[in-house]
């Protein structure tokens, strides 16, 4: 699991299908050099995690919560 700003990305499970990139309502995710990367602005809506068919992306729990 590779940590990004707000999400954890699983390099081995991920098939680079781009679903997470396309469902993100604020378009902070992208595929660069074959890796899912994240820029600032995540609103923690969980859409990427909910739609990923490969269980390859998880939104990090907010520090101190859960």
């Amino acid at each position, binding site marked *: 699991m590779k940590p990004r700003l707000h999400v954890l990305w699983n390099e081995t499970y991920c098939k680079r299908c*781009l679903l997470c990139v*396309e469902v993100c309502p604020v378009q902070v995710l992208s595929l660069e050099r074959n890796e899912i990367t994240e820029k600032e602005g995540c609103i923690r809506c969980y859409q990427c995690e909910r739609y990923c068919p490969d*269980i390859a992306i998880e939104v990090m729990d907010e520090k101190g919560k859960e």
Partner: protein
Amino acid sequence: MDRSYKDLLKLRRFPHTWCPGCGIGAVLKNVAMAVKELGWSDKNTVAVSGIGCSGRMSGYMNLDAVHTPHGRVLTSAETIKTIRPDLNVIVLSGDGDLTSIGGNHLLHTSRRNPDITVFCNDNEIYGLTGGQAGPTTPRGTKTITSPRGEPYSPLRLGHLLTQQAPYFYARTTVYHLNHFKKCIHEALVWKGFSFVDIVSDCIELNGRRLGFKTAHQMFKWFDERFHIVEGERDHLGENELGIARAVEEEVVPPAEKVEEKPEIPMASLKPFTLEELHRFDGTGGKPIYIAYKGKVYDLSSSPLFQGEKRMRCHIAGKDLTKDIDVAPHGEDLVFKFPAVGRLV
């Protein structure tokens, strides 16, 4: 975010076999979530799959799982449920497996209404074998076996599976996620045969030929084609997503007509002695009388006595009280005939 559903998946076999963006992964994941939410586990739940890309689903479930011959998924599932009614039986399979080669089993398993839940990954194509048209392929779709467009209308599963109560038929898509989750949950808790028709994407062997570049583009197409209908429904229209269900129509047996024969007072009946009775044995065109418990009955209309002096062991013109009490039939047989006198 509760991620405990992962216990139900064989993560050591991940990444799974399906193409990037294939909807089957979403079906597997969301079914696992719903099963976990209900508190079901490997102790009480079995997953059964047929053949096809979709048929690989049960193999990724951390449950007892059966991978059956092509088309026989429902027969296997129904057998398991019959032998072990305490188990929750879920079927994870494809539209080709369930409705084409397995179509006959679908008809008859749904008719018998066993308490099993079917999740049909309906990608409107045969995925595993290379993208041939199947019975769920929409008319006009170009596939490798229908390069000029599929000429036939697809099976209307929504009609087929709702033609006779009880039934549970839900249609949803992998894109309409909240609706999808609701349908899975409702189907799992439904008592009886429930079928969830999940419109899903085969991006590699169907989507690309249709001009879609990513799974998400196919999702947008599902969004254009289908809309959600709320509330309780008997049936779903062609492009409607929702749940159609009905419980068994109660069969009210028609009230039996009880013919009340007015009780004839003994004293008003004509008196017969045994000798007099003896004469009415049906010979020479005479009527057939017998006595039973002090009354004389006219059995002339009985088809069993016609033209005969005796019917098996019962002899006409006699007091048959003892005979009838030991006969295999009841006395009701006698009471059907008119009482004509009393024995003195």
